[in-house]
């Protein structure tokens, strides 16, 4: 679908038979846009501000981007090739996505420019309706295509980033680590959704089996929030581990999470909880019969 929008010719307007060639009209149009570059560009930046778009960027940054988008826009109109604009849109997206710029903002600014330029054409040719019609016939398809190119470029870039991040998260998300014989820790960081909870449980169960673990410490210090479904997943993980003969200790419940759990009434009575990871590991060692003593007692002073 995306490719179709990007590659296909603008399907919206079937141009009337132009009396002057489209090329000549576009040339005229481009000359007009070049001539009024400073004024139109300033006007555009002002309207972007008024519409509260690109609020994540400073005024100077907006102005710099506006300038290069404007020039790329005019160039795309002039040459009829979109590669440069496409590359620029991708590059721009790469820079602004981490700043939290939304799709609607990007679409918004491109449509603003389209609108702005159309208005300036109206103003210029208001006395010559016929000419205005021809100019618009030449302008509109190209402008639509440009808007599409930029918006699609942005969305594609965004999707690419999301895909990459998802993969990175999936790879990073579930390390099951053995800290001592028979003792595993499972640090959970970030948000847990049902799919991830399932994956966590499966990996933990496999880890218990392969490492012959007897105690597992699940540390949720890195979990910002728990809701009832995630809490239930946690309870399920604990029970499933018990079926394999492993005791689970949950550590790192923040005050906020503790409060949420009490408020929503999740029964954590079956769960063995300890304040922090250190305490959890100490408790686990106690269960396993380990005692940890400072080395100097047995080895003499260093």
């Amino acid at each position, binding site marked *: 679908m995306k490719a179709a929008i990007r590659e296909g010719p603008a399907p919206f307007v079937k141009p009337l038979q132009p009396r002057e060639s489209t090329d000549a009209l576009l040339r005229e149009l481009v000359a007009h846009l070049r001539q009024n570059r400073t004024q139109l560009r300033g006007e555009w930046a002002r309207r972007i501000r008024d519409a509260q778009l690109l609020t994540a960027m400073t005024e100077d940054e907006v102005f710099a981007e506006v300038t290069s988008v404007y020039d790329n826009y005019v160039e795309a109109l002039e040459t009829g090739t979109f590669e440069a604009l496409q590359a620029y849109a991708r590059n721009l997206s790469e820079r602004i996505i981490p700043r939290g710029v939304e799709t609607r903002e990007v679409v918004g600014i491109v449509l603003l420019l389209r609108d702005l330029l159309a208005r300036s054409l109206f103003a210029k040719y208001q006395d010559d309706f016929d000419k205005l019609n021809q100019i618009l016939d030449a302008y509109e398809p190209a402008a639509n295509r440009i808007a599409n190119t930029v918006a699609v470029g942005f969305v594609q870039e965004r999707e690419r980033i999301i895909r990459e991040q998802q993969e990175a998260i999936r790879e990073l998300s579930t390390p099951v680590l053995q800290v001592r014989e028979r003792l595993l820790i499972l640090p959970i960081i970030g948000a847990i959704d049902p799919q991830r909870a399932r994956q966590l449980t499966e990996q933990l*169960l496999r880890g*218990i*089996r392969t490492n*012959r673990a007897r105690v597992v410490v699940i540390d949720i210090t890195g979990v910002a929030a728990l809701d009832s479904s995630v809490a239930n997943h946690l309870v399920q993980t604990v029970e*499933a*581990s018990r*079926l*394999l003969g*492993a005791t689970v200790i949950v550590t790192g419940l923040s005050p906020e999470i503790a409060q949420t759990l009490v408020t929503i009434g999740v029964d954590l009575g079956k769960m063995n909880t300890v304040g922090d990871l250190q305490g959890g590991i100490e408790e686990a060692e106690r269960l396993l019969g380990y005692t940890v003593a400072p080395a100097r007692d047995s080895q003499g002073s260093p």
Partner: protein
Amino acid sequence: MEVPILKQQHYLIATIQAALTDADLLHLRDALVQKVGKFRSRGVIVDVTALDVLDSFASRTLQELAHMIRLRGADTVIVGIQPEVAFSMIQLGLNLEGVATALDLEEGLSFLDKQRKIENTRGLRN
């Protein structure tokens, strides 16, 4: 299919080797409860390593078995539940509450040994 019940010193070991019918399960339960008394066993191990599914009837029967054997004065431990089996049991809400579990036969034996030690020390103290 009959499940063989082996006597190993103070313990009874029942290793389930293939999927059981409900009747087989009940039979196993009754046989174990009876033999615990006969051999004066202190513990029972039920090994389910070979099972790739444990349905609600099976887990309820195992739970009953554990409780009945408790009443007969011995401990029960279920060993060898596979990760996938554990996962689907929890999904179905079958958590074998109140029943001891262990990873495999070896762990089960050491669990029972520990239980006995606890009971023995308690006996000494009283």
